[in-house]
């Protein structure tokens, strides 16, 4: 069973129609995806691309215009309360009850969840939230400490599925590392994590698969490894003697030669390229490592204006 299964999910805001078509905002358009049980799934896109809209549809904050989805096999329209009973959610830029202490806040949210906080002690320990800190009112907390409370409240009852919106926002590098370890443990325990992020290096570090949304539409849904393998890498090579003929080599493009230096773009499997240069006297060879950030930017290449228009139109939703 898929942890999350969305089928043609559509969310439009505003009036639209024939009278005022410009009033329609397409926050999410025909999104179909599946998140498998036990995986860490990254959901990527710039502000306003539709990431939070998708999450809010899953949790019943928004109602779909068309399409549907199930979470842990439960329908988002009919079984929203049950979905939230079995899910942990960290909203982006979480707001907390400033008048409560950290401990009281976590107690209150655990009471509302109706499930024992079996993982609270371990999470607080890993995120360095000691008893003295938890006894202080939240109004005295820094942004990073609030984010830690947000992470603990989302995971303390050991939910089957964690939905985390920008989870490492505000955490220092040490705490980010601690958070990644928490996610690794969570995955090892067979739990599922769905998380949206802008920080592509962390998605690359922790996620098994990623989906990329642009202007409300899904533009990629792949294993992180496949996405990286598919991306074009820049190659720089110094050669002694005549340069090899790479024009017919699969995956090679944008070939430029200047004296003893050759540049080209390499996409996909590198073996045909390596075979083609095998007979050349290569003095130096640099193949830029594949990074998710570049793959992500490539997906947006040429459509940046569209993406940012959509961002503005969706008003950050």
């Amino acid at each position, binding site marked *: 069973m898929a942890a999350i299964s969305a089928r043609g999910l559509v969310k439009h*805001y505003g009036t639209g129609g024939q009278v005022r078509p410009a009033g329609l905002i397409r926050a999410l358009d025909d999104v179909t995806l599946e998140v498998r049980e036990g995986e860490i799934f990254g959901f990527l896109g710039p502000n306003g691309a539709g990431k*939070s*809209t998708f999450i*809010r549809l899953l*949790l*019943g*904050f*928004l*109602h779909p215009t068309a399409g549907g989805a199930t979470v842990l096999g439960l329908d988002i329209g009919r079984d*929203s*309360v*049950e979905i*939230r*009973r079995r*899910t942990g*959610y960290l*909203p*982006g*830029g*979480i*707001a*907390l*009850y400033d*008048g409560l202490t950290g401990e009281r806040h976590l107690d*209150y*949210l655990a*009471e*509302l*969840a*109706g499930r024992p906080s079996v993982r609270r002690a371990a999470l607080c320990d890993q995120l360095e939230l000691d008893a003295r800190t938890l006894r202080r009112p939240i109004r005295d907390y820094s942004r990073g400490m609030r984010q830690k409370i947000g992470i603990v*409240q989302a995971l303390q009852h050991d939910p089957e599925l964690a939905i985390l919106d920008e989870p490492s926002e505000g955490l220092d590098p040490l705490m980010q590392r601690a958070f990644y370890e928490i996610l690794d443990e969570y995955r090892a325990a067979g739990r599922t994590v769905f998380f949206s992020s802008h920080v592509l290096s962390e998605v690359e570090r922790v996620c098994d698969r990623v989906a990329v949304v642009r202007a409300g539409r899904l533009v990629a849904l792949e294993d992180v490894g496949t996405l990286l393998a598919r991306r074009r890498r820049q190659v720089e090579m110094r050669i002694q003697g005549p340069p090899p003929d790479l024009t017919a080599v699969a995956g090679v493009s944008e070939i430029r030669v200047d004296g003893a230096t050759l540049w080209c773009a390499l996409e996909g499997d590198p073996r045909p390229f390596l075979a083609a240069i095998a007979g050349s006297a290569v003095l130096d060879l640099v193949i830029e490592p594949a990074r998710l950030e570049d793959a992500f930017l490539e997906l947006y290449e040429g459509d940046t204006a569209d993406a940012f228009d959509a961002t503005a139109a969706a*008003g*950050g*939703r």
Partner: protein
Amino acid sequence: MINGPLLRHTWRGQRVRIAWIGLAMGVWAFLMPVIYATFGRQMEVLLQSGIIPDAFLRLLGADPFSLNGAVALGTVHPVALGLQLVYPVGFAATAIAGERQRGTLEVLLARPLSRRSVFLTLLLSILAFAAVTTVAQLAGTVAGATVYGVADQLDAARLAFLGLNTLALLVAVAAICLAASASFDRPSTPIALGLVLVIGGYVLEVLGTIWPDAAFLQPYSPFHYLQPLEILAGRGVNGDVLVLLGVASVAAVVGLVRFPRRDLAAPT
């Protein structure tokens, strides 16, 4: 449908404030029999002298300086109404829209509780707050009358009916303000609606009382359905309570239908 942790959290967060308001309400109500016992005779002489304009007398009620008159005046006096309406207007109007604006509604609704449950739990909380201030008012009245030896002039059943009618008024206002709070993303609009309802309603009621030509406006005021002097004189009508409970029910149904159907986009 009522969520225990939310109810306890709401109570715990408001208990000091509601205790102070209850105390203030009790002291205010205590003073009404005291004023009657101390100045009632002189005021009666003053009234009989004819120097007070009729319109002002109508505003005070037909029997302003009997014990019933003093208690009735104390019930609908702006000070008493101000204290009574702090929660039905101030708290109700901000209960949902305020949490939405602060972003804490996200955290609350991420738990396994339905929006209807949130609405009903908050409405029940406000009903309980209103019950505290109403009971404090009745207790203050009885205490003042007992201390000044005029308790025998009070009818317990009529006083209880006055409490019920007052509570019905507070619940009607609270349900309207809470339904508005559940319908907007910012508390400013529900607060404005609540103030228009209360201040506008009070003005319509007073205007209709002192100016007979404007009496046709009075049925549009919620305060028209709380007539303490009539109740204490034994002429109270169940219809007023029913009208107020009817308004409260309609407003609650509107809130219960509207809130779950709303889209709650990410706070900006």
